[in-house]
């Protein structure tokens, strides 16, 4: 295959295909006041996406529809509404099998409806990007923000990143493709955010120029052949292992599963370079640390400010990627802490569990405060949790008992 650089040439829409490092790190940025949904659209505009499949579910419907406008304007090769999230993710798989760069969005019940597809994507090494604007999953029906679905996604073999702000979202959609599509990674990415809090609020986001876009996806860099009949070897599934001896079958599947998780591990180096580390930290020498992901980080920052007014110093760890999991980083960051507060927007506290299983002396972890079902997380309840841990008297918060 010829190796001609596409950098500097134009895509169908006339955008200049730009070296992603130049585009993301050096190109001028324009501050723009947008909702999270609009920010998704603006990132996709610059992502050179071939196919997007959409399906309505709050709170991602608006973003998915805005991407439809991009298609109408000629920024996306093909776009349509599927008939269910399971179908959408299958359709995404088909396009990715055929060598296309694929984008989709879902939330809550949609994520669970589609679930069978996520390990399939990972197993088939399809670098699809799926935005997950988290929302509750329970009966009776809830459309409120809640991050419970991330607990399920973390065990699919996908890369899972958790954005805090619209700015994260903008940058990570574009950077996400760069990491996902690396030949030694080639895995799907679930790029999660807390629904409504990020999608439906306006924020100032620094955008890269609209006339620059990412290089197109090159399916021939895939570690498994794309199914376009242009690329040897001829078949993907040379032998259906279910018919072989159990030994061959389980040996094959076991080694492939390990390879998928190894690929997620190999994404670490690329992710560290693109996201400037898997975690961000502030004041790690403090006795008390808040460790969080998503908008719980923002609430944590507010709590830290309130506590600073009272002379209590608290540090912060923002976890950006859940898969790969920043194990070493967390061990190092929590070295000095005596109390590790993990505020979460879900009932089970999956992040606290994950941290407890990672760091020495897990009894330091306080798995809360947790809100769920759409409740907001006032910084005051984080403050209260910290004071309780430190044995400092605090005013009783209204409605929370004595």
């Amino acid at each position: 295959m010829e190796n001609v650089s596409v950098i500097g040439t134009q895509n169908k829409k006339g955008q200049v295909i730009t070296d992603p490092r130049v585009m993301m790190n050096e190109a001028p940025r324009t501050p723009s006041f947008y909702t999270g949904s609009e920010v998704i659209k603006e990132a996709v505009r610059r992502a050179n996406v071939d196919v997007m499949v959409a399906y309505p579910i709050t709170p991602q419907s608006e973003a998915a529809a805005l991407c439809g406008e991009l298609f109408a304007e000629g920024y996306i090769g093909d776009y349509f509404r599927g008939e269910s999230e399971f179908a959408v993710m299958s359709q995404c798989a088909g396009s990715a099998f055929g060598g296309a760069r694929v984008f989709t969005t879902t939330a809550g019940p949609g994520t669970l409806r589609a679930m069978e597809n996520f390990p399939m994507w990972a197993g088939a090494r399809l670098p699809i990007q799926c935005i997950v604007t988290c929302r509750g999953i329970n009966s009776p029906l809830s459309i409120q923000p809640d991050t419970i679905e991330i607990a399920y996604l973390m065990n699919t073999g996908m890369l899972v990143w958790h954005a805090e702000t619209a700015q994260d979202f903008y940058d990570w959609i574009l950077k996400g493709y760069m990491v996902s599509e690396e030949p030694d990674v080639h895995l799907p990415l679930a790029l999660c955010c807390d629904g409504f809090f990020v999608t439906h609020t306006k924020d100032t986001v620094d955008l890269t120029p609209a006339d620059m876009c990412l290089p197109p996806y090159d399916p021939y860099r895939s570690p498994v052949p794309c199914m376009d009949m242009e690329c040897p070897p001829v078949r993907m599934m040379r032998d259906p292992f279910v018919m072989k001896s159990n030994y061959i079958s389980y040996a094959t599947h076991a080694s492939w599963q390990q390879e998928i998780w190894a690929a997620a591990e190999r994404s670490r180096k690329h992710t560290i370079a693109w996201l400037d580390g898997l975690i961000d930290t502030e004041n790690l020498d403090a006795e008390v640390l808040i460790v969080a992901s998503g908008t719980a980080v923002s609430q944590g920052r507010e709590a830290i400010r309130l506590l600073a007014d009272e002379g209590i110093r608290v540090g912060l760890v923002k976890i950006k990627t859940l898969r790969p999991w920043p194990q070493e980083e967390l061990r190092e960051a929590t070295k000095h802490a005596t109390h590790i507060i993990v505020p979460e927007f879900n009932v089970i506290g999956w992040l606290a569990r994950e941290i407890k299983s990672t760091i020495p002396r897990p009894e330091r972890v306080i798995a809360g405060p947790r809100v769920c079902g759409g409740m907001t997380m006032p910084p005051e309840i984080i403050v209260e949790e910290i004071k309780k841990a430190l044995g400092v008297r605090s005013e009783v918060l209204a409605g929370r008992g004595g």
Partner: protein
Amino acid sequence: MSLNYVKFSPGFEAFMPKEYRDMVEHGPFGKKTTVSQMGSFKEILEEHPMCAGCAMTLFIRLAVIAVPNPEDTIMVGTAGCGRLAISQAAIPFVYGNYGDQNGVASGLSRGLRIRFGDQPKDVVVMAGDGGTADIGFQQVLHSWFRKERFTTIMLDNEVYGNTGGQESGMTTRGAVLKMAPLGKKFEKMDMVAMAKIAGCAYIATVVPNTPRRVESCIKKAVLIAREVGPTYIQAYTSCNIEYAIPTDQVMADAKAVEDDRYKFAEYVSDEAKEYLTARYGYKEFVQKPAAAVTHA
């Protein structure tokens, strides 16, 4: 299209398994093969695990030979017996999840069109009756309603064969099978009628004991799907194990079922007729000139 994908990478010839070498050296690629030459070239690997005498295997072999452009065809399959042989054919095979084959094919066909324009890359789905009419029903119907341009072939053995003989929507009423201990309570689903309502441009019902007809129907279906719209072939492919058909009776059973509920029927939309005639020189749809009417 490039035939490079069925060549050896230089230096690797000696290390490839024999089946692979046979496929490269004696495969149907770049040749126009027909079912009457069956056995003289390599359309499928010997080592498929389907039951002895299984009519589905024969049908799959016919289908693989019949596709008009094997070097530019991708088969999409799903869980079920058929997949065990389809994935052994000398044609790329994609598998997603059970029942999502028409969704995968929709995405694949669109993705390939975005990348290669309308240069033909044929997508052909082959899935069981359970996969097509039960668990995949929604995605099958919607792909037809959306007018997705690929061919759907149902391998109808009227049972869930691969999981050991359970009732499916395509089972005939009254049949006693696993999970229908008192006999099936409702009629065999009329998927042909549904294909018509959903707008398929070509529909045919076939049985494997008429190889030339199978070949001709599949060719038409694939050609029409390239440009006109979705096409559907429903094939009776008995399960001799679950229906206890002695292997030497498999063809007789197919004949009996053909006479009973699988009579050959073909629907070709007007647009498809015009297209086959104009583009591929088909003569069978040319309107015979009406006899001159004389007015006294």
